[in-house]
């Protein structure tokens, strides 16, 4: 089953004619993602070549979705236009089919643009936003699968571990850790490290809990805000599957932005220590070193009688 994105999901690419969009669309097709075309305003009617095959381009998301019945879109539009690209996608999915998944990879979108975009998406309940500033979402399949984003596809394999993370490369690390104990992934989601984003930890945990394929969860947080604490408290009440966690930034100094716009300890709040404590209080098995996530996960699986 996996969550939100099936292996054969039909995917559009916004910004498909741009350098980034084209490069990653090609990689997605190579992985096996069912790309059905793209959208770049002003370039409708053109085609784009991915892995030796031509794909159609539309001027608007409404046209693109109407023509392809797409399930999801992935946005590689530059920051000044990305907020609007999210809203266009949300409006189009809502109007044409009442549902859809919008994945925004773009890094550096102004926060107030995201405040607007998130509120816009929220008013269209059938539409889910993942990101921005994230690696995307991947549901590995038996043969390829749906890779919607910039993650290296080849490190994944279909399996029963759900992964949710704020960070990109740290998600890959978590994937590699599951593979090191011969476990594959149901779905991996990078929710992004910006202060204002779409889908959060709790929605991911809820979906993993409800998903038959997922039998255990890896949750990777980082300093800043209290999304991890809230998710941990929620999980304690609502999640029956084993969860393994890690939080990055134990050594980060307060008041300094650590790369991600959201990764900052302010007013003594949002420290890694606080988050680890919340994880532990919720019964989440923690690794203090991401290279040990595999071992901790194996332990949790055994405890749950899953290995």
């Amino acid at each position, binding site marked *: 089953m996996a969550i939100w994105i099936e292996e054969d999901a039909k995917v559009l690419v916004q910004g498909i004619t741009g350098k980034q969009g084209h490069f990653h669309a090609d990689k997605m097709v190579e992985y096996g993602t069912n790309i059905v075309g793209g959208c770049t305003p002003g370039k409708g009617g053109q085609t784009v070549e991915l892995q030796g095959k031509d794909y159609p381009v539309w001027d608007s998301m409404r046209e693109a979705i109407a023509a392809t019945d797409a399930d999801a879109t992935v946005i590689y539009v530059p920051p000044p236009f990305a907020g609007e690209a999210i809203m266009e996608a949300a409006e189009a999915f809502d109007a044409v089919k009442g549902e859809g998944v919008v994945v925004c990879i773009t890094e550096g979108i102004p926060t107030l643009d995201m405040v607007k975009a998130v509120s816009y998406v929220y008013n269209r309940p059938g539409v889910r936003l993942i990101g921005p500033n994230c690696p995307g979402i991947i549901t590995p399949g038996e043969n390829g699968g749906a890779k919607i984003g910039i993650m290296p596809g080849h490190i994944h394999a279909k399996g029963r571990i759900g992964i949710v993370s704020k960070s990109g490369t740290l998600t890959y690390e978590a994937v*590699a850790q599951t593979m090191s104990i011969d476990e594959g992934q149901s779905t991996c989601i990078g929710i992004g490290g910006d202060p204002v984003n779409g889908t959060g930890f709790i929605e991911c945990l809820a979906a993993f809990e409800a998903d038959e394929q997922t039998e255990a969860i890896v949750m990777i947080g980082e300093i800043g805000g209290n999304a991890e604490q809230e998710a941990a408290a929620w999980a304690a009440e609502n999640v029956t599957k084993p969860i393994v966690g890690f939080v990055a930034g134990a050594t980060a100094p307060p008041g300094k932005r650590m790369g991600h716009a959201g990764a900052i300890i302010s007013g003594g709040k949002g420290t890694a220590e606080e988050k680890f404590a919340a994880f532990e209080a919720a019964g989440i098995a923690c690794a203090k*070193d991401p290279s040990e996530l595999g071992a901790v996960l194996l332990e949790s699986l055994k405890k749950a009688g899953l290995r």
Partner: protein
Amino acid sequence: MNIHEYQGKALLKANGVPVLEGVHCTSVEQALAAYDRLGSKVVAVKSQIHAGGRGKGTLYNPETKEHVMDGGVKIAFSKDEVEKYSSHILGNLLVTIQTGDEGKVVNNLYIESGCEIEHEYYLALLVDRDNKSVLIMASTEGGMDIEDVAHNTPELIHKISVDPNSGLLGFQKRDLGMALGLSGAALKSFFKMLGKMYEMFVSNDCAMVEINPLVKNKNDEIIALDAKVSFDENAEFRHKNWDELRDLSEEEDVEIRAKETGLSYVKLDGNIGCLVNGAGLAMATMDVIKLYGGEPANFLDVGGGANEEQVKTAFSIILEDPNVKGILVNIFGGIMRCDIIARGVIAATEALSLDVPLVVRLAGTNVDEGKAILAASTLNIHPADDLAEGAKKIVSLIGGEA
């Protein structure tokens, strides 16, 4: 991006928020001229640095570290006092609770007219990540450390959340003013001021506007007596004027240079330099170094698609720090290919004649090619298969415990 109080006040004034008359100065002569010009008997002489706690800070001579004066914000009752305070402030080191022990040299002063204060309030606008909206916070407990207020008497902090679809509504402004106990002319003044401030927040892509204190004077006027304004750096592309507002002397020179090359660098106090792709993994790398008994010298994220040149710049920035005794490179290639990183590492170590131990951990895209390139080189590069092994190796190579 932070700006100075005097710049924040100019912005508030331009947007119709009442502030007191004031003059930005960089010399004692200018401060004295400002005093004459303002024609106010009492003036505030305010140090301008990008850190809070100025009033309770202490000034030191930057060379001798001798104590000069207590308090970075002074009330002067005469021209002589203006001369005394401004000469004690300018060019000296101001240490506050927020600057750390090294303090900051004060190059800018703000001379501001006095004002008869009836009551001090606290007001802040910021983006609230939980509600994903602009949050306005106000308290009757102005002039105090707001974190203490939040901790000890949270009921004295009043909050409203602005729906981005409707903007700040009239009843919200009224409710907040009434929660502060305002009525009549003062409530009207607050209502008008808050509307202007919200407009300013949005149109200038602010990350935070904090006014502590916001005051009510004898005439029931609401005035911003302080202004701490910061901008959302992601929005820089639509604010060409930010370049002029940026005070580069307030930022770490090396952090600025890193940013110009697309790197994200933060200097820390340890001795193991790190070069990593991705912010989360970079933080995790620092954490693991510490876990195995070492101390990270920096946070450095080379980003998603670094080239050979950026890797070289990253190395040279790490090595500028004289404390660095060893370097750990940790790359999980996604978009980034390990073979390119390996070539970059070799080019950089040769060009910079690296003489500290170097541990390189590669994983992900083209990892085998990357490892082969490193293995074939004659340079003294220690490979590692995972992060823990890499961290343990670098810690033991620089003579720490691991």
